[in-house]
């Protein structure tokens, strides 16, 4: 599928919407509380999405290899807790994952996403500095540079992009 011509998705310069969502353990996290620990790359996903399954192991490398406090990775799932846990087990995801409300998907809609994965880098002041749907090697390398971790291994063959 081709890349989207989007008008509704938050892009660089926009302000991230305030929210509060539970993690897989049921503890609630607000945007303000999350950003207090530094900039965050939010990754919206669905467990059945092939490009999400492709992308998340690279995000996990950023999570494991990044400098403390540089950039944290937080997943936002559009599936229930059981399916999201299974996804995490299968793709080795250990970073924090929040669960969007399955009735109305308010946070997904507030970020204006239409496809998954959709990634948003949010700075500590709440400003979005990157908004992208699908997989982009260039974006992950840029985030990795800031995080102090390499998302891709030496010689690893990774496509430039995969649309979500």
């Amino acid at each position, binding site marked *: 599928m*081709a890349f*989207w011509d989007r008008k509704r998705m938050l892009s660089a310069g926009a302000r991230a919407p305030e929210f509060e969502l539970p993690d897989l353990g049921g503890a609630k996290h607000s945007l303000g509380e999350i950003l207090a620990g530094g900039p965050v790359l939010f990754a919206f996903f*669905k467990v059945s999405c*092939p490009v999400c399954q492709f992308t998340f192991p690279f995000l996990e490398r950023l999570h494991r290899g990044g400098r403390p406090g540089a950039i944290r990775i937080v997943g936002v799932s559009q599936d229930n807790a059981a399916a999201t846990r299974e996804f995490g087990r299968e793709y080795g995801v250990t970073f924090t994952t929040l669960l969007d409300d399955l009735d109305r998907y308010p946070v*997904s809609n507030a970020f204006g*996403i239409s496809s*998954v994965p959709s990634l948003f880098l949010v700075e500590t002041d709440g400003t979005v500095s990157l908004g992208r749907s699908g997989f982009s090697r260039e974006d992950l390398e840029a985030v990795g540079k800031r995080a102090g971790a390499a998302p891709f291994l030496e010689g690893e063959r990774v496509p430039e992009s995969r649309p*979500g």
Partner: protein
Amino acid sequence: MALEIKPREREGIVILDLSGRITVGEEAGILRDAFSGLAASKNVILNLRDVSFIDSTGLGALVVGFTSLAKLGGRLKLENLRRRHIELLVFTKLATVFEIFTDEQDAVNSFFPDREINRFDILSFVQDQMGREGA
């Protein structure tokens, strides 16, 4: 010709412009992957204007899209069907499942309860077909 999908949005509704064939193999897989990549709760219109052929596997992919979107709070509707597509939906009784539109604005408006729309009249189509066969 492989299936090509160009996504766009109109008033928050996702419109997928399809061109090619929706048939067994790679083409049906491309359509299923496109549905998998859509965010939850999205309302979607498939524009079939440039789809030349749909086989049983392609029809299955449409049904999978319909059910997977519905499970996640979204809806799937169809627009710009060719006569043979409509015949296929009528023959398989799927015309009672999918909402069909001949005009894109009507299809978009159908997601907004306060708007008036012109629906495709499947009964007229069937009666017209029967009239042709009887002639």
